[in-house]
């Protein structure tokens, strides 16, 4: 890959989503993906508007474009985590998954946690 293109994809996850994954991000997804590092985001949305997709793209971008070593996701329903993992796998083939259970019930809704390595 050309160096310019690589830098562009690294600094702009929305561009990466559009160009590499071929998915046009919605305006709120673009804002979500381009948020500063460590930002706390709250998305108040309807059903089926791409919450899981946006999260999966952000995590896949961190894993593949930025080379982030580990990402953690938690959700009250295991099925939601599985669908998230499926999307991430589709966006970033080399990402390894590990589903772990934790004993910290108070911190996690249903003791389900997804690690991306």
């Amino acid at each position, binding site marked *: 890959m050309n160096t310019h293109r690589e830098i562009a994809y690294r*600094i702009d996850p929305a561009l990466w989503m559009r160009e590499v994954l071929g998915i046009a991000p919605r305006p709120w997804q673009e804002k979500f993906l381009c948020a500063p590092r460590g930002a706390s985001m709250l998305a108040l949305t309807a059903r089926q508007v791409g919450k899981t997709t946006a999260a999966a793209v952000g995590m896949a971008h961190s894993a593949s474009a930025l080379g982030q070593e580990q990402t953690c996701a938690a959700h009250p329903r295991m099925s939601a985590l599985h669908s998230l993992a499926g999307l991430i796998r589709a966006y970033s083939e080399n990402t390894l998954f590990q589903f772990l259970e934790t004993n910290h019930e108070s911190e996690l809704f249903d003791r389900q946690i997804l690690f991306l390595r």
Partner: protein
Amino acid sequence: MSRNCCTCQHLKRPEIDRRLAGGEPVALARDYDLNPSSLHRHRTNCLKLASSKIKKDAVRGSAAIELLPSKETLSSAYLELRARIDQVVEQAQEQRSLNVAISGLNSIRQTLDSLARLAGHLQPASTQVNVAVQNNVNVGAVQIAERLIQAFDHEPETKARIARVLLEDDHEHTS
């Protein structure tokens, strides 16, 4: 009616002919699944190459190559020629026949050049190609991207604009 020559009809006839013309014995028939007698007839009748003639030619060629001057011989001949040129120029200047002397020396020089070329001493200078492989491009991209993210992390629009410009630049390079 004379019978057809097996070698003439062979698929690799050009190669066989070339080897025969190069002086190789008819024993090469085995390489092509041919009868040596048939190959001998082909060499004599079709190619008109008598074995004695080939041998003579080959020996003559080898001798001619051996007779070509070595680099050292040519070098000393050139040095000798330079000394003679100086002498001749002096003499010709005294006798006022410089043109004749120079043209004679020129012919000697040309002869030496031809001999040197024949001996393979006059080869064009080989071109040296230096190839530098830059293998730190990816590292550079990572570092630059990281620097840009740090600098414009709180300005997503600026980051997006930089990314767009970089992508446009890449499109221009590739088109």
